[in-house]
């Protein structure tokens, strides 16, 4: 019990460190807010043109479609959809061999980076999510939930999405044990992240089988699912089903990360760091 509490304190401190680290880049954050707002504006107009042509496309009305755009901008850095999370640093540590030091620490590698990445994600949500959304609400008619419970449901979906996002990027980073630079895998992951998360276009607008496949892949847990929870498309039993979908992917991918970590760690010993 004692050890447990100590562990928790350790990871809480790591998460706080992750939060603080990003919080120091104030100018960069302001610049990011500006960029997210500009992209949100441009995309919102293109969505409006699309929904003008096809009202009710994908089951969204215009306000919901535009809200989807701003949710995408708000969650872009939270979910590190285009990269920019912890993975670059972990890849660098693997490449330089510093990872050997990390493995000697009395903390679990995966849990350590998870804590740090969740801290980062929380900062990004507050730092780069709230303001662009507020700017969007000033210019457009957004479908913001009035029910506080729905906000809570949304935040839960965001947390679960962040877990899936971390699990995916942990796998990407570990690939560096074999490829050494991880650049190729990172790029493929980034492509998959933007395409299959709904960042380009909501996944329920994707035609036919492509849409079905996209909605079943883990990336849909990062943006599509939280956005649909926010827009009130999943309630009651359906909401539970969506959480189960996110949790299922999180568990599967985190387990895969564990296994890969075990295999990779043995490699470090073989190489001698």
């Amino acid at each position, binding site marked *: 019990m004692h050890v447990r509490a100590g562990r928790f304190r350790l990871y809480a401190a790591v998460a706080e460190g992750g939060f603080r680290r990003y919080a120091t880049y104030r*100018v*960069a954050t302001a610049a990011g807010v*500006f960029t997210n707002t500009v992209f949100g504006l441009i995309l919102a107009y293109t969505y409006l043109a699309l929904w003008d042509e096809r009202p009710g496309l994908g089951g969204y009305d215009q306000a919901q479609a535009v809200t989807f755009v701003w949710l995408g901008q708000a969650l872009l850095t939270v979910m590190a959809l285009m990269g920019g999370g912890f993975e670059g640093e972990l890849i660098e540590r693997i490449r330089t061999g510093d990872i050997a030091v990390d493995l000697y620490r009395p903390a679990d590698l995966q849990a350590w980076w998870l804590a740090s990445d969740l801290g980062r994600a929380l900062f990004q949500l507050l730092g780069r999510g709230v303001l662009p959304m507020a700017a969007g609400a000033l210019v457009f008619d957004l479908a913001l939930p009035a029910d506080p419970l729905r906000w809570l449901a949304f935040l839960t979906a965001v947390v679960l999405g962040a877990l899936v996002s971390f699990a995916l990027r942990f796998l990407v980073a570990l690939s560096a044990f074999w490829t050494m630079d991880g650049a190729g895998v990172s790029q493929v992951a980034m492509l998959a992240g933007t395409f299959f998360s709904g960042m380009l276009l909501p996944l329920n607008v994707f035609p036919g089988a492509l849409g079905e496949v996209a909605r079943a892949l883990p990336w849909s847990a990062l943006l599509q699912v939280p956005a649909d929870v926010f827009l009130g498309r999943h309630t009651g039993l359906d909401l539970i089903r969506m959480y189960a979908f996110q949790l299922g992917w999180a568990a599967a991918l985190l387990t895969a990360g564990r296994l890969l970590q075990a295999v990779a760690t043995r490699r470090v010993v073989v190489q001698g760091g």
Partner: protein
Amino acid sequence: MADPSRVRFRRAQVRDGLRAYRLISAMWVRSLMAYRLSFAMTALGNFAVTAFDFAAILLMFSQVDRLGGYSLAEIAFLYGASCTAFGLADLSLGSMDRLGKRVRDGTLDTLLVRPAPVIAQVAADRFGLHRIGRLTQGALVLTYALVVLDIDWTVVKVLTVPMMLLGGAGIFGALFVAGAAFQFVARDAAEVQNAFTYGGTTLLQYPPTVFAKDLVRGVTFVLPLAFVNWLPALYVLGRPYPLDLPVWVAFTPPLVAAGCLALAGLAWRTGLRSYRSTGS
């Protein structure tokens, strides 16, 4: 007007700059080519990343026939023109957004003492030939549009296309330089530059009818992005211009580009003069 020796000096400066740019970028290309497979992969990746923008448009057109009153071929024309112009600027000046990092870590100082214009060194630094991926992607979409579109070609229309690409590249190039100049002041604000460069090219991929009039007014009269492709392309397509502008504005992009580059150059020199090393 100008004193001839000054003009000669200026010309020599430009020649020096271009020479330094050529040498440094050639060095980076050689170093990239040491790992050909890696280069091929990053170029392909660059191609794929940008191709997703067009994939989004294709996905939209899987649901509709028109967007903002424009057909897929017409939007492909706008997209191809914007993406190609941006690709040219990105290939030649895309490294400039690293300036903020150089200011922060103090490595800009090493460039200041070298006997070559700083702007040429910054622009050629880590010259990324893999950016050719974006350029190729834009050129392919533009070619597709030119093949599919049913245009009554005249000599003037034919000439408008290359003029539009070069003028557009000049305007985007000015944005890269101005963005870098801004980073002398705001060191870690590289993302602001992205809003204008990447944001600008995204905006121009769609017809002006999609956007609110004030936004169109802003990118015509304040930040003259509309001259990159909207105004010349709409002339080629025989579409009405936004804001009821006169016909001749279609032929002004080279002038607008020259003006933007001059202003950006001024901003750059001001930024460089104000630079104080971090001393690290």
